[in-house]
């Protein structure tokens, strides 16, 4: 497109429009980082939570979730760095960002409402995590993530049904299916 061409045929016009629109799709692979980071944080924290609750007398096993704090710091630094390096802002990146910020607010509500919901915090967080993963998968049109997000609709009722002590264990399994497997596929996938 070195020289400016003023006389285009309708086919040429259409070709330009479709090519440019395709070209503008964001780099969805970058999202794999967040799913891997939070996937591993959640799996480790869930398993530690389950172990402490089931096999030790430690009175506050949920404290292992404090490892989420460095996770938040890494997430904020990484997304800030990404955003300032990005030369284009896409609508899909924006939608995904707000979906997960919404997730953050939702889980805060769940955590602080703990005593009013019989401390069924883990299954509710799973439900929100699944929904947000499902929406993210739809936005980037990536099937493994859509399926991964949907799997939470199976794991969450199981977590509600079983005694509460098993919730973190179910959560760890759900995260492997819902976050980690799709994220590794996404990382490898050439979109």
């Amino acid at each position, binding site marked *: *497109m070195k020289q400016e061409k003023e006389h285009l045929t*309708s086919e040429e*016009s259409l070709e*330009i429009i479709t090519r440019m*629109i395709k*070209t*503008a799709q964001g780099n969805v692979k970058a999202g794999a980082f967040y799913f891997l980071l939070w996937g591993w944080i959640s799996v480790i924290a869930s398993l530690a939570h389950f172990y402490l609750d089931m096999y030790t007398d430690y009175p506050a096993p949920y404290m292992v979730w404090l490892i989420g704090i460095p996770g938040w710091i890494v997430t904020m630094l990484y997304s800030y760095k990404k955003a300032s390096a990005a*030369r*284009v*802002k896409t609508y899909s990146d924006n939608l995904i960002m707000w979906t997960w910020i919404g997730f953050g607010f939702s889980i805060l509500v769940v955590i602080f409402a703990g005593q009013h919901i019989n401390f069924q915090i883990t299954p509710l967080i799973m439900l929100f995590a699944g929904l947000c993963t499902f929406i993210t998968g739809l936005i980037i049109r990536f099937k493994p993530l859509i399926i991964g997000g949907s799997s939470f609709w199976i794991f969450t009722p199981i977590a509600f049904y079983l005694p509460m002590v098993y919730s973190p264990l179910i959560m760890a399994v759900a995260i492997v299916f819902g976050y980690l497997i799709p994220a590794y596929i996404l990382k490898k996938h050439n979109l």
Partner: protein
Amino acid sequence: MADFKDLDPLLHSQLRLAVMSLLVSVKSAEFVYIKEKTNATAGNLSVQIDKLSTAGYIEVEKSFKGKKPLTTCKITKKGLQAFEEYVNALQQYIRK
């Protein structure tokens, strides 16, 4: 072959159409990004962006990224409408 007199002349040009097509699909894009995706020269692209901006089809914001000047472009409502009309007119020509 039908003539294109009804097609918006501002959009019916290779580079300006490419810029507009790129901008309809994103929230905003930096000058260097548009330059890379359209394979245009900086000089030519500047001229075409100025034309689109003067027509009110795009919004150009100049700022700094560190010490480097940064030009960010974004489509306006007027630009989006013009683009839609252009595509509609184009479809009608193709149907003929």
